[in-house]
């Protein structure tokens, strides 16, 4: 690897973006990612707007859910697609412009070096993210909850920016179709004893992302879905 070339990541790195009605912002997100990685996969999760067309035009590979099945379901579909195309590293990335594509090389690096199976983005290890007060509180709750229930110690439990090795992507089950998949992924990491590390990333809260994102109340529903599924194992 030369230091001087503005290098794109290896061809076997795939970025997966679950997207539901994200047409207004998707173009910039895809363009940003394509600067770093050749394979950008958008899973259009039953959108009613132009999400698929915008994604295709921007140069992404598009997989379409005919009906909306939730973010967890879309991520699993994107991972299955990337695996079928020979992906060695799969990165999940939010469609709403919260994440910074410039963080992509950093989150992939520990995997390419073979240091871990999963790299988890965290907004709490540096001061680059403008996390609103209430959201900070709810996320702290999530961190505590995950520590108690899954026995895994991380500083940010609900960050959609993650990187998986091929092995990890094959092993991790995502049965949570909705938002509880974030907790489920951590639970799977613990259960399967996968090696993980955390990488500081920037999360930008914009009016758009806040409007599109989860309300803080949704966290209660997430807890309920997660615990119900965990009991069924």
């Amino acid at each position, binding site marked *: 690897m030369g230091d001087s070339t503005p290098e794109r990541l290896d061809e076997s790195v795939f970025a997966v973006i679950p997207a539901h009605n994200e047409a207004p912002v998707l173009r910039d997100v895809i363009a940003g990612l394509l600067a770093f990685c050749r394979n950008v996969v958008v*899973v259009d999760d*039953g959108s009613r707007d132009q999400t698929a067309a915008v994604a295709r*035009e921007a*140069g992404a*590979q*598009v*997989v*379409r*859910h*005919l*009906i909306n*099945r*939730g973010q967890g*379901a879309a991520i*699993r*579909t994107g991972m*299955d*697609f990337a695996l*079928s195309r020979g992906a060695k590293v799969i990165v999940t990335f939010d469609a709403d412009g919260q994440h910074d594509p410039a963080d992509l090389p950093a989150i992939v690096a520990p995997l390419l070096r073979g240091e871990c199976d999963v790299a988890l983005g965290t907004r709490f290890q540096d001061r680059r993210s403008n996390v609103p007060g209430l959201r900070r509180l709810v996320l702290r709750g999530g961190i505590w909850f995950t520590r108690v229930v899954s026995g895994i110690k991380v500083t940010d439990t609900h960050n959609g920016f993650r990187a998986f090795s091929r092995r990890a992507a094959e092993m991790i089950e995502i*049965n949570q*179709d909705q938002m509880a998949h974030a907790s489920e992924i951590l639970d799977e990491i613990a259960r399967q004893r996968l090696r993980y590390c955390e990488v500081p990333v920037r999360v930008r809260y914009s009016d758009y992302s806040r409007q599109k994102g989860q309300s803080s109340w949704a966290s209660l529903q997430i807890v309920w879905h997660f615990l*119900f599924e965990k009991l069924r194992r």
Partner: protein
Amino acid sequence: MVIKVLLLTFFLFSLSRAVLRFRDGHISARELVGICLFWLAASVVVMWPAVTMLLANLLGVARGTDAILYLTVAALCYLAFRTYIRIRDVEKQLTELVRRLALHEQEKSSQNTPPGRP
């Protein structure tokens, strides 16, 4: 009593719906008979509430209506849980179906257009 008239009217309405659904072919003759027996039993209880005392004595509950109430609540809770789990399972199957279709469609369209971006 007003309640008796109300309940019996409702039972008759439910019965008529069941007959209509049988005619449409949505339920079988056996199911229709089952439903009829249920509403018939309910009507008997409404007309002659004293019969519930048989059940109450059997269960060791003081009043017949209480016995019916307890059993009904228990049965409804059981049904609610079962339905919840059933729906979760169906949702999972639905997701799997949508996923397979999505991947299949992608496969088909990428065969038609050669790889490489516009």
